[in-house]
């Protein structure tokens, strides 16, 4: 007996088919501002050779996640320039193993990330390597913004504003991750100098539209990104712009022999 194939029309799958949008509904929600109309946007392209496996745009303010398989390379494009891409990375097969700032800094003997930097886990293994980078230095000491820390940095009037910790929690929840899984992160395209007197803080960025970083996965990893919605400091040039995430298959890069 040949079973009758079960066909489910798209419209019957909950959540897959938005209504034909005529005009978006009016909303009273105080959503954060996105980029000004005259902003220069450069979507650039992959910073690694090989066939494209995935090509996503992350809207301003929003989260993104994806699995990057061992041997693949993730290119992150700073489409609008000086847009902080808050970044966490986990062993995709055991998320208790995750990116570790101290292990990464101590192994490199340097406070900034550049081409050649290895992103170490809390178990001392390399999760990803920076194989391409188009800005002078990348930040991993500044951490992510949150509604809660915004009250400390800017005042209680900012607590209602959207923040990276919200994006990390929302996206992480899709994988069963929660607050215990949020650790200090990387902020691609954000500029956090430590000055001679020890002063540390986020200052004007040194990136530009179309600048890229490329990350080679040594093992299968889960990457979670927050396209930072912060509008109280220069991490986004006070102008939240999109990010582009491109995964290319670069399996040939490492030769097991």
């Amino acid at each position: 007996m040949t079973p009758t194939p079960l066909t489910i029309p798209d419209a019957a799958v909950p959540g897959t088919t938005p209504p034909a949008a005529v005009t978006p509904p009016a909303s009273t929600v105080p959503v954060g501002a996105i980029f000004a109309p005259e902003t220069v946007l450069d979507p650039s392209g992959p910073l690694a050779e090989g066939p494209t496996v995935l090509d996503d745009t992350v809207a301003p303010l929003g989260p993104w996640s994806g699995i990057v398989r061992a041997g693949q390379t993730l290119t992150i494009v700073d489409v609008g320039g000086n847009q902080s891409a808050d970044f966490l990375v986990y062993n995709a097969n055991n998320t208790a193993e995750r990116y570790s700032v101290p292990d990464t800094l101590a192994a490199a003997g340097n406070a900034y990330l550049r081409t050649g930097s290895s992103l170490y886990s809390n178990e001392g293994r390399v999760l990803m390597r920076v194989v391409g980078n188009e800005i002078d230095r990348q930040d991993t000491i500044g951490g992510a913004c949150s509604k809660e820390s915004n009250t400390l940095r800017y005042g209680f009037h900012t607590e209602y504003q959207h923040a990276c910790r919200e994006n990390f929690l929302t996206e992480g929840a899709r994988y069963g991750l929660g607050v215990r899984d949020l650790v200090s992160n990387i902020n691609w395209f954000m500029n956090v100098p430590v000055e001679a007197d020890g002063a540390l803080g986020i200052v004007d960025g040194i990136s530009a539209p179309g600048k890229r970083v490329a990350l080679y996965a040594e093992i299968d990893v889960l990457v979670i990104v927050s396209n930072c919605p912060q509008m109280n400091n220069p991490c986004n040039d006070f102008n939240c712009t999109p990010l582009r995430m491109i995964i290319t298959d670069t399996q040939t890069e490492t030769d097991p022999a």
Partner: protein
Amino acid sequence: MTSLATQHPTDHVHNARSDARSRAALSSPFMPYRPAASSPFIPTDVDPAALTWAETVAPGGYTHRVLARGTRIRFEDPTGSACAHLLLFNAAAPGERLNTADTVKIPWQAYLGTDHPLLSGDGRVLATIAADTSGHHDAFCGTTTDAATLRKYGGSAAEGPTPSGRSRFLLAAAKHGLDARDLPPSVSLFQGVRIDEDGALRFVGSAGAGTQVDLIAEMPLLILVANVPHPLDPSPDYAVGPLRIHAWRGDPTGPDDERFTRTPELTRAYLNTIDYAQARGL
């Protein structure tokens, strides 16, 4: 290009620090007031020194709090368009949480109002509705999911103009180490639903601007609040108003209170609650 960035001298750390600190005096229509006694909206019948929580929740926003047993919590709907979706947990053991079925079944009453207990699944009162000038509430429809929100408004991004109630609860719960499994069906205040004879759920909306509801925390309470449109709200727009919250120190319901003996079920629910609290030294 003239941009916001040109208004902010943030080229060096010391300048960036000054720029950040220059914002301290700013205000927002949606914010917590800390200390709570600094709230511009303190209820006239409340001693400001007793306040432990004062906040205006944004449309589409959420908040969460751990409150001592006995705390009195007032929700106000200043515009007549707020919708306060609530989840309650025993803060000392959050596996004990709001049970909406028991909340309508045990009191033999479908509609929330004054003296209605918000019951856990463990036979105890998490909170009592101690006062209510609205009467337009709902214990049946829960809150909105991402999928339903997407179908209704064309989008449901947590960071966007039409977030779902469940996405709000997920974030609030996450901040207490809880996840999706910890979110049971919720109740909502200020937008009413009635059940017709044939079972039809009839949205009756708001009782108008300026109504308020008081809860008494009968247990140490973890409360999650999401302020999003009711699932049956017929408006095509996402038109929810701000939600005001004040809480202050008070006493849990005890044998001397009139409501303690109002029904035999209530009496036993309070006895269970007091028994638990006394054993834990609460």
